[in-house]
């Protein structure tokens, strides 16, 4: 019988010397089902990567040119299905900028509070999903439980758990419910506690840290040139937060810190995100304290805001108003504007062109993760295949937004 451990001359072995092509995704658990990466490998090292997106393209911008301005709200919801409230508010602010109106103070606080709740959700799910892709399933369950608390608040406020379509031009769909403040005050500490518990499972885990620290480093200059914004940019050491640099709504009255990383690796991105959740909780607290309990939520302009349903059914003026807004749409002055807000994963911009009619001429969304994802190629070149998973996870790519 032949011995199994035959001595082989190294030189006689025919090892493949050509680079190997490997297809990762779109049906790969770590690619969120929407990204395909074609890798050129030398051994396990990635020599070249081609990131391909577009698997979730739904023609958002084309659809927007076919309806009225208010009909876009459901679409922006579905662009970022992790923090739809921030997108709602971002779009509402863009149209309001063109109309030249500012919503009442109470509404601004309400938008801030709801938006920040959505931001907690967004960061938490990104971190949780990243852990899950690395094999740590339990923290995700902690985070999912925390998200449940926030979603319950949203359900109570808006009637929907995920895609609320709650924003309106010139206000919100409904005023805050009677128990809004109490619900949030009771919910947020519980959320923070669950996050801390989930974090404890991760931050002393050698495997988790080894796969994050020093992996996927992005320099400050490159991050800027690539158009990175949000947490990923701050993790690279640039303290740019739209809420701080160009405050909109009432963010200039809020006291919060902007967490900044030092090396710009996966660990920094993870930690910045976790810290930002805590800062966000601070903002929510302040917003609730400062938010008036009484007062209008919508602006007082019958050309923009729908009249109350009660009036629509009983008076002819309100019926006409309602009809004109629904059928013709809000008349936005002709021109162009770019409005930007800090969304869950960076600067969410809307470039709107109006021709003065009730239908937008062009709606351009500047999705933050589109710019982020294009940096992935640079990040993973030179790394190993297992490093792709945490690197991609830490970028917080949202397919709906990235692919428009």
């Amino acid at each position, binding site marked *: 019988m032949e011995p199994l451990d035959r001595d082989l001359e190294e030189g006689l072995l025919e090892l493949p010397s050509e680079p190997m092509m490997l297809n990762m995704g779109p049906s790969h658990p770590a690619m969120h089902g929407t990204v395909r990466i074609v890798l050129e490998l030398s051994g396990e090292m990635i020599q070249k990567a081609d990131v*391909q*997106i*577009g698997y979730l*393209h739904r*023609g958002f*911008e*084309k*659809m927007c*040119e*076919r309806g009225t301005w208010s009909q876009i709200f459901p679409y922006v919801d579905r662009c970022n299905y992790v923090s739809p409230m921030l997108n709602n508010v971002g779009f509402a602010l863009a149209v309001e*900028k*063109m109309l*030249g109106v500012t919503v009442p103070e109470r509404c601004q606080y309400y938008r801030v509070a709801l938006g920040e709740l959505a931001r907690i959700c967004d960061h938490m799910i990104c971190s949780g999903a990243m852990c899950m892709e690395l094999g740590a399933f339990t923290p995700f369950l902690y985070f999912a439980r925390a998200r449940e608390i926030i979603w319950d608040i949203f359900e109570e406020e808006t009637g929907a758990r995920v895609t609320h379509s709650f924003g309106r031009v010139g206000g919100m769909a409904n005023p805050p419910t009677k128990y809004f403040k109490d619900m949030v005050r009771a919910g947020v500490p519980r959320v923070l506690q669950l996050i801390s518990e989930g974090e404890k499972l991760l931050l002393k885990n050698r495997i988790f840290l080894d796969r994050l620290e020093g992996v996927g480093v992005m320099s400050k*200059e*490159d991050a*800027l*040139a*690539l*158009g*990175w914004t949000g947490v990923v940019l701050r993790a690279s050491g*640039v303290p*740019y937060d739209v809420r701080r*640099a*160009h405050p909109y709504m009432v963010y200039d009255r809020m006291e919060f810190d902007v967490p900044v990383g030092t090396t710009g690796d996966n660990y920094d991105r993870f930690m910045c995100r976790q810290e930002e959740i805590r800062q966000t909780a601070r903002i929510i607290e302040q917003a609730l304290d400062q938010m008036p309990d009484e007062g209008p939520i919508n602006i007082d302009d019958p050309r923009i805001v729908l009249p109350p349903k009660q009036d629509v059914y009983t008076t002819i003026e309100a019926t006409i108003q309602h009809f004109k807004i629904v059928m013709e749409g809000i008349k936005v002055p002709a*021109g*162009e*504007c*770019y409005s*930007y807000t800090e969304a869950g994963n960076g*600067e969410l*911009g809307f*470039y709107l*062109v109006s*021709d003065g009619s009730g239908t937008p*001429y*062009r709606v*351009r969304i*500047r999705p933050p993760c*589109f*710019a982020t*994802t*294009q940096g992935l190629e640079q990040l993973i070149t030179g790394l190993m295949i297992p490093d792709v998973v945490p690197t991609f996870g830490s970028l917080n790519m949202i397919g709906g937004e990235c*692919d*428009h």
Partner: protein
Amino acid sequence: MSKRVLEILKSKFGDDIYETHSQFGDDTAVVNPQRWREIARFLRDDPQCAMNMFVDLTAVDYLGRQTPRFEVVLHVHSLERSHRIRLKARIGDDDANGVEIDSVVSVWKGANWFERECFDMFGVNFKGHPDLRRILMYPEFVGYPLRKDYPADKTQPLVELRNVPDKLPPFSTDEGMPFGRQTHDYPRGEETN
């Protein structure tokens, strides 16, 4: 604040800045497409402009409203000086001839995917782009969906299976079956005994 950027641009490039406005507070300059990249580079390198952050690049189709038909729109931001500017260039005639402009990837690398998207959606040809191919649509897609003369309900031809040598079907015959198939397939005879 950023009004000054427009002044600097006007004094530096003179007649190549066709028009400027600051509608809704956004400073905008319409520039000569021939000098697109040059102006972009100036905006990045000039210490008074210092536009080091790439924000957005897109296009708008003004078919039947304006000639040249397309407007390429670039937004950039300066982190240190905290100002923004919108740069626009008008290109292409009504039959979509001459829809081309210099690429600014060499100025900001972030423009890469944004220019690819713009090419994909509007058919704008960016000269000097390192890798200009479709990004959101598939390679066989016919037409440019965001142009105003592309009907929103247009259907696309079916795509043939791409002819790649040695291509295998996604699953071989025994893949994709329930994992328990073999273990559950025990002989019937023993069971009845």
